[in-house]
């Protein structure tokens, strides 16, 4: 390439607003909530024409030092990803009232009084159960074998909220249609977990065990483990549809295109982007954000290639169901209330 | 072939183990190397065998200087060695051990075990050994292991064979057989270097004798030299070769063993209904070929065996069923047979080894803490008293020569208040100077009225120390004879023949 001119003054960018983000132990390449949250911050930083700092954690003990070091680096807004970062983020928020803090997936309410514990801390929560409910209903309608499956990485609420919503959606379908579609892998209180979030043989055998029960829709919840599920589906000798979690798998991982029925979207990049922009514009507002179907914080992804494989009537029902949930006619239960 | 070592020097750090040693081995001779422990004999032979690299000096074969990068080269040059510490893989069979390093294979890289077996049998038959090629080495008695070592060396058609203390673990018969073998080999033209601490053997087979002291050749001797001459040449002073002891002043029966039976983990009865008594102030030697239950018998007495029936009362108190510590605390002193495994913690200092079985209280420990000053003082005292050659009490015991290691164990066991003293193979592999000292201490212990049990496969030793000798065979007592029993009689008993005319007095 050609060498740039010696003095490119002001190449640093148009703003000195410095947004920063700390991951939890999953790291920013988890194809899941760390990555999505980071993308939102990145997008905002790009738009502002400035830099941003990202810091990964490997374990629980890393959160506090990572946050403290970012404070020392002069960050203007710091996003902590994951419920595990809550205590450290609250503490740093209270210690640094001049800095804006964002906390993903946790209410930031350690003292349990129903209020966020710091004035400059904005919790971002996602009622993914609502979207998963739709996915459950869709799956139940789509399933020909009468069995749909799901499994998770570890039994965390942010994981089981998907499985819960999914199950409720299937149950609702059964109720409405007098059908008897079964959910394999989660019974509402316990189910199948791989024990971790690696796409290793454990995740793949978990998927296979569920497939062996005759399901034709599979929802893996937990970052990269969907890859193992995808592989198990490819090796199965029949058609099984995959449902993505967090991002639209069709977009983020095109190799899933043939099998992905839809994805349960948890639009973290949107909310972190918005929080970052509002902070940069001096409009930061610490009221908790709860992503719902209504505000597009969560949702069901486009069916892409599957659009014509699914009965239009079913799609209409799902659309109607979405309206009912938004209207409050159908309630989806989750720990977010 | 004629082998010459010219000006060999070998240093270990600051220590010069071999100091310009010259040695020539003529074809077809048996050349004995004599020297006290640590004189440098094994080191010299290891240099010859390519295991160590000499710092200076040359090795010449038939006048031509050769250099050996490793034992492989030495073997290729026709040198074989039977090592002081067996160089056998314990978990391998005899045939596997013999073939190791020059294996023949068949299709598919499969080891030709049949050929190896045949080779073992052939050599075995040639020299009248009885060795099963499929026996696993660790299950074999040491005497047989020794033969495996010899077969190993012979299987490579060595022209010069080095035997480094091969007789330390053999019975008299086995020793005689080995010496016959050596003569046979010599007759066939093989030269032999023979290292031993036993002067009787030297005079029996040697054609020439070279004596080494402190890493240097101090002289040559003729096989006709007397024991005393050889001993003083080795040690550099006059050595008393016979133990002076007064007739025993017998006390009451102190140890009374009754129908003692020990079973090993596979169900073999290794000590079978053994009964005997020992009085205060006498030495009972237990003789027998190794592996006939002597070791297990003494171990049972100190609580180291698990499946024991019968009784053993020491001054009226039952020993069987109590744990080792209680028995030791009762004043039983025990010198185990294998000092490097059971007797010492080699990484520990001499001082620490001296308190090994007294770590529970006074004099070295109070309120859970070791008293380092008391211990150091004690160690210095014992180093003086037992003439332990060392740089100081802090030296690691594993760095001492074998004889000195043995003295550490003896010093530890003899400096407690004793009610019974049991020593297994107290002088195995120890040089004449140290043997003199150890024997003197054992007799002193007896003379202070303490009952003493000595296990020895060495008839000379048994005869020198014992007031009575009990011979064991296959776990049973063959008989108990007086300390003056003849070698022949003992030899027969050790083979299981009941003595014709004995009255050692089991009733004593």
């Amino acid at each position: 390439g050609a060498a740039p001119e010696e003095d490119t003054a002001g190449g640093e960018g148009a703003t000195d607003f410095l947004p920063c983000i700390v991951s939890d132990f999953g790291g920013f390449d988890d194809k899941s909530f760390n990555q999505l949250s980071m993308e939102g911050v990145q997008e905002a930083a790009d738009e502002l024409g400035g830099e941003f700092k990202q810091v990964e954690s490997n374990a629980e003990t890393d959160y506090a030092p990572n946050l403290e070091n970012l404070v020392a680096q002069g960050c203007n807004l710091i996003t902590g990803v994951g419920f595990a970062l809550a205590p450290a983020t609250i503490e740093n928020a209270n210690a640094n009232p001049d800095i804006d803090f964002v906390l993903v997936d946790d209410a930031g309410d350690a003292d349990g009084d129903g209020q966020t514990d710091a004035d400059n801390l904005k919790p971002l929560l996602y009622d993914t159960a609502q979207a998963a409910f739709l996915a459950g209903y869709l799956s139940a309608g789509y399933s020909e074998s009468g069995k749909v499956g799901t499994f998770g990485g570890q039994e965390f609420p942010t994981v089981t909220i998907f499985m819960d919503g999914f199950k409720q959606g299937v149950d609702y379908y059964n109720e409405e249609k007098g059908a008897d579609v079964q959910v394999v892998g989660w019974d509402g209180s316990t189910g199948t977990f791989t024990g971790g979030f690696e796409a290793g043989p454990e995740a793949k055998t978990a998927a296979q065990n569920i497939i062996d029960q005759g399901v034709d829709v599979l929802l893996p919840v937990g970052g990269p483990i969907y890859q193992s599920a995808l592989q198990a589906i490819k090796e199965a000798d029949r058609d099984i549809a995959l449902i993505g979690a967090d991002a639209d798998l069709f977009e983020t991982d095109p190799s899933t295109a043939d099998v992905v029925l839809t994805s349960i979207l948890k639009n973290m990049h949107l909310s972190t982007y918005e929080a970052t922009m509002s902070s940069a514009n001096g409009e930061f507002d610490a009221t908790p954000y709860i992503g719902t179907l209504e505000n597009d914080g969560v949702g069901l992804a486009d069916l892409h290639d599957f659009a014509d494989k699914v009965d239009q009537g079913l799609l209409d029902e799902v659309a109607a169901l979405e309206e009912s949930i938004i209207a409050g006619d159908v309630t989806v239960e989750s720990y977010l209330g | 072939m004629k082998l010459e070592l010219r000006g060999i020097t070998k240093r270990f750090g600051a220590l010069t183990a071999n100091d310009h040693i010259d040695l020539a081995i003529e074809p077809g001779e048996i050349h004995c190397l004599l020297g006290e422990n640590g004189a440098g004999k094994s080191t010299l032979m290891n240099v010859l065998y390519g295991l160590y690299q000499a710092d200076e000096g040359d090795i010449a074969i038939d006048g031509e200087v050769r250099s050996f990068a490793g034992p492989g080269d030495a073997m290729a040059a026709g040198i074989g060695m039977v090592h002081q510490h067996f160089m056998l893989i314990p978990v391998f069979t005899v045939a596997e051990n013999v073939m190791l390093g020059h294996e023949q294979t068949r299709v598919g890289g499969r080891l030709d075990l049949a050929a190896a077996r045949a080779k073992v049998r052939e050599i075995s038959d040639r020299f009248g050994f009885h060795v099963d090629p499929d026996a696993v080495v660790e299950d074999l008695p040491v005497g047989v292991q020794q033969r495996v070592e010899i077969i190993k060396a012979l299987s490579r058609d060595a022209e010069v064979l080095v035997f480094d203390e091969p007789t330390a673990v053999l019975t008299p018969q086995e020793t005689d057989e080995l010496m016959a073998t050596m003569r046979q080999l010599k007759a066939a033209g093989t030269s032999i270097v023979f290292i031993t601490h036993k002067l009787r053997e030297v005079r029996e087979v040697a054609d020439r004798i070279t004596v080494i002291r402190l890493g240097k050749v101090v002289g040559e001797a003729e096989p006709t030299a007397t024991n005393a001459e050889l001993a003083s040449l080795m040690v550099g002073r006059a050595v008393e070769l016979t133990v002076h002891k007064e007739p025993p002043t017998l006390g009451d029966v102190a140890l009374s063993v009754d129908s003692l039976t020990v079973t090993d983990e596979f169900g073999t009865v290794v000590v079978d209904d053994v009964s005997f008594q020992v009085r205060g102030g006498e030495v009972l030697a237990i003789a027998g070929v190794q592996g006939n239950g002597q070791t297990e018998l003494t171990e049972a007495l100190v609580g180291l065996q698990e499946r024991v029936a019968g009784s053993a009362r020491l001054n009226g108190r039952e020993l069987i069923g109590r744990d080792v510590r209680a028995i030791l605390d009762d004043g039983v002193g025990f010198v185990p047979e294998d000092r490097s495994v059971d007797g010492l913690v080699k990484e520990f200092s001499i001082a620490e080894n001296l308190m090994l079985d007294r770590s529970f209280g006074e004099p070295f420990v109070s309120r859970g803490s070791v008293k380092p000053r008391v211990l150091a003082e004690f160690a210095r005292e014992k180093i003086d008293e037992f003439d332990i050659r060392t740089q100081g009490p802090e030296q690691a015991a594993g760095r001492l020569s074998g004889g000195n290691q043995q003295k550490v164990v003896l010093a530890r066991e003899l400096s407690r208040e004793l009610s019974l003293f049991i020593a297994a193979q107290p002088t195995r592999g120890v040089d004449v100077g140290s043997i003199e000292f150890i024997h003197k201490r054992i007799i002193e212990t007896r003379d202070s009225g303490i009952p003493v049990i000595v296990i020895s496969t060495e008839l000379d030793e048994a005869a020198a120390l014992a007031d009575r000798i009990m011979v064991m065979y296959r776990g049973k007592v063959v008989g108990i004879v007086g300390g003056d029993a003849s070698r022949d009689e003992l030899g027969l008993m050790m083979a299981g023949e009941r003595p014709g005319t004995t009255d050692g007095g089991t009733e004593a």
Partner: protein
Amino acid sequence: MTSAETAVPQPSRWHRALQQITTGGAAIAVLSMVLAMLAGSILIAITDPEVQAAAGYFFARPVDTFAAIWDAVSGAYIALFQGAVYNPHAATFAGQIKPLTESLKFATPLIAAGLGVGLAFRAGLFNIGGQGQMLMAAAAAGYVGAYMNLPVGLHLVLAVAAGIAGGAIWAGIAGYLKARTGAHEVILTIMLNNIAFYLLAWMLATQGILQAPGSNNPKTAPMEPTALLPQLLGESFNLHAGFLIALAAVAFTWWLLERSSLGFRLRAVGENPHAARVAGIDVSRSYVIVMLIAGGLVGIAGVSQVLGTVPTGFGGDIDAGMGFDAITVALLGRSTPLGILGAGILFGAFKAGGFSMQAAEQVPNEVVLVVQALIVLFIAAPPLVRAIFRLPDPAGPRRRKQNGKTKEVAR
């Protein structure tokens, strides 16, 4: 034997002093760090965006690339130093030395767990179970600390004791099974690690055990203030009394190994169980005892984590991989208490510095892991370091064969 030893004349005092400096432990340690950091520089340089940009036109203006590399590498290591030892840019003196106290904070669990691993080593056992022991210690200390109401003082003492007991019992299970059945402690401790992991996960997900009341997350409630390890240097520093406990543990372990009769027996068993048994030492019991003590020491690491470092409540990976770091710390410290103290502080410093390196220069965390691993390898192999820097061998002529010079010296 003795007379032969005087053969080689001693070199002059100065020569020896010089030799000691260039070949001694400190020099090797420093040079090991230099080597490891050089290797780390490569990783730093290749990830740095400026370097990548400048390398794009390397042939047009190579100086830029080198300048960028220099900037990236020096920036990273300066950040490392400033995060681990001393930060000249801080406003106050307290702020300037805060990094050092952070390093000591991170060193605390490593020292304690290192002692647990090292002690077991000295008694002949390979304790891979630090993870499980830490987790169970954290669970016990966390339960007492978060969910019991006790008076000031007593609460802390009880929480610490519970943690130590938790670690001790978990390790004791391995010791007991080994003593009783002869099973290999490596398998036992690995299995117990995983069992502890899931057991803790279950407790954290269960109301009434460890899960914070009213919460769904697998996390405990914050510790009660009465159960917290006091901050040693006031509010502005994170260094807590866990460090003092770790120092006390160093002193205790030193006494145990070097001075106590129990430690004497444990070491005897470790070096030669056969001889120990013949000397009346109960080998099986030693295994149980040493695992209990080792587990208790590792337990201190767990306690310091939950009652000091992360007082706000903890989740399932509170061990943070330190059970395995502890093995390295223990062995790098040659399983001696003081060595472990030093190795623990070194590792703590790297941890602290690693955070600042990542935050300030965006150097990935893994670079620190790599540098750390390399340092350990180099420190453990002085001859390699000496060979690389062409330093003289202190053992000198010992290993040199057929050397003309030594010939003359030896008359």
